[in-house]
């Protein structure tokens, strides 16, 4: 090597490949206001749709009179169920095997349910017209409490299926019952409880919340009558799935449907499903022959599109006196709202809730879940988590704290006694998962050292004494959580959506000049895929990331994929990207061998080139090989340099982490102030540490919001009482704590680059950490479990019940 040839390290750095803090490509347009989001789209002749919604939680629709609305100048049409029924579009299938009303036919089942769709020349006229649609309702008793759903004599919600005895997952127990699902060994678990030295039991409820991205759900549908083709631009986290569903529903052949997800203003699970507004816009475009835009407002978003959680988990742990867990038993009552529009892989009606044994070595466990209908908005999406994993993590992490309290053990100590040990990986969990890799003890100990856990506990003890002496009105709480996420859905043997296996895909084309266009089946909503996928390719192929364009979201050009949610992009499409790159590299190697007139086996890879072993002066760079692929390929080889990979992951990946929170509770107002939050994450190989840290900040902030204030509330007659930013808690920069982040790296052994996925871990681990901290503050006074969210008045009420207000 001479002076002018940069060293391998220098060349590697120039590539901006994996592991570097590459600045994001997407930012260039976003910081200049040049992103292209759905509502930015303007098509010639475009009309605007607006929905008329039900003011009632449960009512019979007696009559809809749209005459006044239709008479308003600028109104083009008004659609109701009567118009959709002949097309068989008044109901649409849900991902969970149920159907959902597109426009209400005979009954409305939740407040703000879609009743009519007004189409007008501009959005102002559409809004005026929506007010003019007259609907006569007959109010019915609303069912709001899921615990009363299966009571005898409970109101019948779903008249359309009331005689259906079978649900999507077996027999229904009641007309408001959706499904029952169980997993684990019941008898062995019951046995463990019978023999247990210590047991704890608690109803742990995770309130209904909403993912609430800053951009609401919206679309533009444009039907070309002459070509018989439909184009839909929309806020879709999974554009290909939308295309397939659209084709199945509309009977338009799939190749004549073009689904485009442009820039998306955050998703967090909210934009996985299909909503009535989309169907209405499509039908409206077909009916009017013009493009139709539908943009949801915030109130509609919070009150009518997919909620998350609403899980009521009766949780029991069996253990020995010295704090070894021997069994876990959970019964979940799942409130799915008026239609089962849960976005889970088809075989998993409770998502991956069976990750509920968490990070602990439970010998046996059993989980049973019952889903019920109530007069609330449909949904059940994974709000910044993998399917029902946040619920599971909250459940087990609260329960472990409750057990620690009963045993008089420090919560961190109880965890250390029960964490799965490093040598147990790959670890078979009692509820059927195979955890890929981890070093849990190292992670928890690192976290405890980082915050000086013992000193914190000592400080807490002193503060408690001071509180008892009346010297302070603040209580200090320390929350510990250790979580195992399960992401990257998923292997085709157990994961599908509507029968489509949950693989993901990448297509990479190397152009003659060495520039690259790559397309994936996933869809970024802020995760920075354009930046990180290019880093994977840069490292794999030795071409600079800046020469690589990553495209997603256009079903015409991108290979079929299942989209982005459940932190699946890196584990699936990220893997597909590496695999496709490796195919290209293999071909490039053949070309290099030919050009250098050596055998392929005499070549070795060096950052951006193949060189002859033992003779590094003789090499061909990838850029040269790209040219050669189009210019002069060896005999018998096709020209060109591109590859596609559809990656069916062999297993899920299992990111994990240890979080510690310190907060102070003002017992007189109930205000909790987070003093410190430390988050250690292990997401395997780190592709872009800057982006990982950003994802963790965001996820922790959402976790903070959920734990401390978010809740979609209904009153007893089914009114949603807080569907706006006035009441739905989105913290500002002032309330949001400062985050300390840290990491360990345990690569996934089965993933091509060892990456596990990260975006959602902080939500999974964060929520129980905050909750445990609040609970911990009150624990010494005898409190065992406080329900979320820990907003001011709830926290104050706890203090009040403990007699702290004199």
């Amino acid at each position: 090597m001479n002076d002018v040839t940069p060293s391998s390290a220098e060349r590697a750095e120039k590539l901006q490949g994996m592991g570097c803090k590459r600045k994001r490509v997407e930012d260039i347009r976003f910081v200049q206001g040049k992103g292209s989001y759905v509502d930015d789209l303007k098509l010639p002749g475009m009309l605007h749709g607006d929905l008329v919604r039900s003011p009632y939680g449960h009512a019979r629709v007696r009559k809809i009179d749209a005459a006044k609305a239709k008479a308003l100048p600028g109104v083009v049409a008004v659609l109701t169920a009567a118009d959709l029924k002949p097309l068989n579009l008044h109901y649409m299938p849900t991902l969970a095997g149920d159907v959902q009303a597109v426009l209400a036919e005979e009954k409305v089942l939740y407040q703000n349910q879609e009743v009519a769709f007004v189409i007008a020349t501009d959005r102002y006229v559409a809004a005026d017209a929506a007010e003019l649609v007259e609907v006569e309702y007959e109010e019915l008793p609303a069912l709001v409490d899921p615990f009363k759903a299966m009571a005898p004599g409970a109101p019948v919600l779903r008249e359309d299926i009331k005689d259906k005895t079978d649900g999507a997952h077996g027999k229904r127990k009641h007309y408001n019952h959706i499904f029952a699902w169980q997993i684990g060994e019941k008898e062995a678990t019951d046995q463990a409880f019978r023999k247990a030295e210590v047991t704890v039991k608690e109803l742990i409820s995770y309130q209904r919340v909403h993912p609430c991205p800053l951009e609401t759900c919206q679309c533009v549908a444009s039907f070309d009558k002459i070509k018989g083709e439909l184009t839909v631009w929309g806020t879709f986290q999974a554009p290909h799935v939308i295309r397939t569903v659209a084709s199945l529903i509309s009977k338009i052949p799939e190749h004549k449907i073009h689904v485009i997800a442009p820039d998306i203003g955050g998703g967090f699970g909210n934009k996985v499903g299909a909503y009535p507004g989309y169907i209405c816009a499509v039908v409206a475009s077909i009916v009017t022959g013009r493009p139709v835009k539908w943009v949801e407002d915030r109130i509609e978003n919070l009150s009518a599109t997919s909620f998350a959680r609403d899980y009521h988990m009766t949780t029991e742990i069996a253990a020995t006196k010295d704090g070894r867990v021997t069994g876990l038993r959970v019964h979940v009552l799942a409130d799915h709202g008026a239609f089962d529009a849960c976005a889970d892989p088809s075989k998993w009606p409770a998502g991956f809730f069976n990750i509920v044994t968490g990070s602990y070595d439970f010998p046996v466990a059993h989980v049973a879940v019952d889903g019920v209908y109530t007069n609330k908005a449909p949904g059940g999406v994974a709000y910044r988590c993998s399917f029902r994993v946040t619920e599971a993590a909250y459940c087990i992490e609260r329960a472990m704290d409750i057990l620690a309290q009963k045993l008089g053990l420090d919560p961190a100590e109880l965890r250390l006694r029960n964490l799965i040990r490093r040598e147990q990986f790959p670890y078979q969990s009692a509820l059927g998962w195979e955890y890929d890799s981890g070093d849990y003890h190292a992670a928890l100990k690192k976290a405890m050292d980082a915050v000086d856990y013992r000193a914190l506990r000592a400080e807490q003890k002193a503060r408690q004494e001071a509180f008892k002496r009346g010297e302070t009105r603040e209580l200090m709480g320390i929350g510990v959580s250790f979580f195992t996420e399960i992401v990257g859905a998923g292997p085709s043997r157990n994961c599908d959506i509507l029968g489509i296996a949950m693989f993901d895909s990448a297509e990479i084309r190397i152009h003659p000049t060495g520039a690259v266009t790559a397309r994936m089946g996933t869809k970024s909503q802020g995760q920075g895929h354009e930046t990180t996928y290019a880093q994977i390719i840069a490292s794999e192929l030795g071409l600079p990331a800046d020469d690589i364009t990553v495209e997603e979201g256009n079903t015409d050009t991108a290979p079929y994929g299942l989209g982005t949610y459940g932190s699946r992009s890196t584990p699936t499409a990220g893997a597909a990207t590496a695999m496709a790159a490796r195919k290209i590299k293999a071909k490039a190697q053949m070309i290099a061998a030919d050009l250098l007139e050596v055998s392929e086996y005499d070549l070795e890879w060096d950052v951006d080139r193949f060189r002859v072993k033992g003779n590094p002066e003789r090499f061909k760079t990838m850029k040269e090989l790209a040219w050669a692929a189009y210019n002069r390929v060896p005999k018998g080889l096709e020209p060109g340099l591109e590859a596609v990979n559809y990656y069916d992951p062999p297993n899920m990946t299992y990111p994990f982490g240890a979080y510690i929170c310190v907060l102070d509770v003002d017992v007189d107002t109930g205000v909790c102030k987070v003093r410190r939050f430390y988050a250690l994450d292990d997401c395997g190989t780190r592709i872009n540490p800057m982006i990982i840290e950003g994802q963790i900040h965001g996820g922790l902030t959402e976790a903070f919001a959920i734990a401390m204030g978010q809740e979609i509330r209904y009153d007893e007659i089914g009114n949603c009482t807080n569907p706006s930013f006035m009441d739905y808690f989105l913290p500002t920069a002032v309330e949001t704590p400062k985050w300390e982040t840290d990491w360990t790296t345990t690569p996934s052994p089965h993933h091509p680059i060892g990456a596990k996925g990260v975006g959602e871990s902080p939500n999974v681990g964060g929520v129980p950490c905050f909750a445990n901290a609040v609970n911990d503050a009150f624990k010494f006074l005898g409190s065992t479990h406080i329900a979320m969210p820990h907003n001011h008045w709830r926290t104050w009420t706890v203090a009040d019940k403990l007699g702290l207000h004199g």
Partner: protein
Amino acid sequence: MAKVQVTMKVNGAPAEGLVEPRTLLIHFLREQLNLTGAHVGCDTSHCGACTVDLDGRSVKSCTMFAVQADGADILTVEGLAAPGGTLHALQEGFREMHGLQCGFCTPGMLTRGYRLLEENPRPSEDEIRAGIAGNLCRCTGYQNIVKAIQYAAARLAGAPVKEAAE
């Protein structure tokens, strides 16, 4: 309702249009002037995604009628970069410090950050947090937005900038 003529200066150039009195400024900017940088994120004037600079004040353009802005001098995110295309220190800071993810809040954050720094060129972290409390972000957790504004403040003051985001 009869339309009325409005005239204003937007990003240094004259702009005019016919609007209904009820036309919200955000819709006038986005739909009539095709300045789609500022966004609508809520109905209740809480999110700040629609923030623009108007006569030296940060305003939520969803809570103002275009007629109220008649005669005003408006700066939107599209007008932040220098005419030659050089990014404003704030735009650079947001990219350097990873102050954005989905980018939906970003135009509002940038225009708000602009006014904040005009009024207080070297704000403390707490002042920045209070200063952007009218702008919600769902993605970043604000920490890197704070760093981005600090970066810009340092750059504008000619001071050395801190190392890039972790």
